[in-house]
């Protein structure tokens, strides 16, 4: 009766608000969780063992796949760019192109996407399983803050390890590019490495390290958020895992798109 008395525009407005209610609520909860996780960094107790365990799981565990993808991305890029550059007789600049592309964009994004796929899913499924088997409730009942014990160590570990993985991916990508330039383009190693190094400015290095740091925060918090808020048994764990990977991957691209205009316009 009430609904029918409302004008159509008001009904549309109410439906629109209903549509946005859930995402806004989710984002609000995510911000609360993030706030508590950051606040716990400076609050006791500090679970150093858990931080080291997570560094091992994320860093050492992802090292091989990140190295492999970093190497091949540099290799493939050098091959593709060589053809384009030969059109202009600028094959000597291959080192510069590989270096700038990897350090600024490809290294951070590729390494983060791999870690998101591997570890956001791992975090969400682990915490989700703990949720549905009442381990998180048990933790709270037994005097432990689950955010302090589970979220903050993963956040710290990810924020430390992902920039390091990115540096490794960048370097191996450059090695891949060097192999192509040396074997297919006959460019001297000294020329390749000198041009690759000299083209880099502080701006490039800053964004090359800032991006994985921010991506790491997003991957860890998104994984933890979906894990801790899992409901609906084992099916729910599956849903949380999928959401964690999809949402963190999307955020990686959103953040890089937001940051790029700032860094591109820097002198």
């Amino acid at each position: 009766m009430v609904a029918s008395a409302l004008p159509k525009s008001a009904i549309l407005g109410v439906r629109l608000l209903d549509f946005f209610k859930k995402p806004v609520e989710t984002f609000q909860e995510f911000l609360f969780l993030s706030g508590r996780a950051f606040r716990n960094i400076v609050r006791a107790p500090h679970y150093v063992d858990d931080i080291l365990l997570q560094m091992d799981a994320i860093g050492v565990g992802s090292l091989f796949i990140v190295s492999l993808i970093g190497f091949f991305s540099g290799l493939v890029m050098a091959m593709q760019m060589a053809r384009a550059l030969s059109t202009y007789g600028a094959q000597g600049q291959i080192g510069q192109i590989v270096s700038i592309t990897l350090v600024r964009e490809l290294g951070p994004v590729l390494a983060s996407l791999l870690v998101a796929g591997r570890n956001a899913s791992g975090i969400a499924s682990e915490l989700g399983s703990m949720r549905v088997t009442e381990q998180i409730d048990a933790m709270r009942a037994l005097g432990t803050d689950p955010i302090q014990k589970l979220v903050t160590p993963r956040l710290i570990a990810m924020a430390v390890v992902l920039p390091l993985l990115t540096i490794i991916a960048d370097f191996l990508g450059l090695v891949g590019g060097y192999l192509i330039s040396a074997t297919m383009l006959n460019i001297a190693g000294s020329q390749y490495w000198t041009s690759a190094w000299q083209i880099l400015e502080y701006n490039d290095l800053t964004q090359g390290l800032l991006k994985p740091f921010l991506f790491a925060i997003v991957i860890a918090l998104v994984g933890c958020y979906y894990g801790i808020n899992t409901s609906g048994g084992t099916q729910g764990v599956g849903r949380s895992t999928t959401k964690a990977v999809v949402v963190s991957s999307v955020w990686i691209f959103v953040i890089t798109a937001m940051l790029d205009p700032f860094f591109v316009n820097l002198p």
Partner: protein
Amino acid sequence: MIANALAATENAAPGGSPVVQFTDVSLAYGEIPALAHISFAMQAGETRIVLGAAGSGKTTLLKTTVGLVAPDSGHIYLFGEEVTGRKESQLFDIRGKVGILFQEGGLFDSLTIAENVAYPLLNQHALHGDTYSHPPSDEEVERLVRESLSFVELEHTLDKFPSELSGGMRRRVGIARAVVTAPQLMLYDSPTAGLDPITANTIINLILKGRDLRNAATIMITHRYQDGHLMANFRYNPSSGKIEPAGSSQLTTRFFVMREGRLVFEGSETELRASTDPYVQKFGRPGSA
């Protein structure tokens, strides 16, 4: 008996107030009521058996008791202190006086059995503040863990992981973890669900033993009338080490029946069996539910 009387005096909440008190507590998950105007109180040494269909609000009742779930309205008091409206960090002390066995066990998969049982000793703030002037030493923790595991006859599982144990054994480890801090209030969520009758009886005997050795207040959720019957009519005799008929002490055990978040019955076992309400009758007969 003297030991029990002493324990009862020690366990009494400050000023003789109830160990647990609910005053008009309501909670809804969206449109679905989980608790509707629940009010009750229980003293040290008393037992409450909570019966009801799946989804009737039993587990929510247990979780709201210790502040794991916050009610929409009403007040909950534990040991005379209000639980509602407190921050999570302010609840840790009071939770240190409560032992909980979760329906799913709640054992930490990544920890060994010994580490699981030691967990409350090492993490509950109240213990460090009240019982100990400093965190317990490694020797003290080991002694208490061994004692607790021997209480449930599982001291040989110290270095195993929960996944290596059967369902009944995991439930017993859950009891060991719940009682290791000698809490004054014990909460059991469906401790016999999914277990065979022999293992279920073993679990109930352990719960009886834990209750009567320390005269702890106990709330037990169950689907099985038999569990409530045993809790109401039997007691653990520390002298003989056996479970015996309780006699007059059955007066301290009361039964709740829940339906759609409401407390539709509260009374003794005799009153439960005499109830004419068809829903209550489903839970008040031997072999029911």
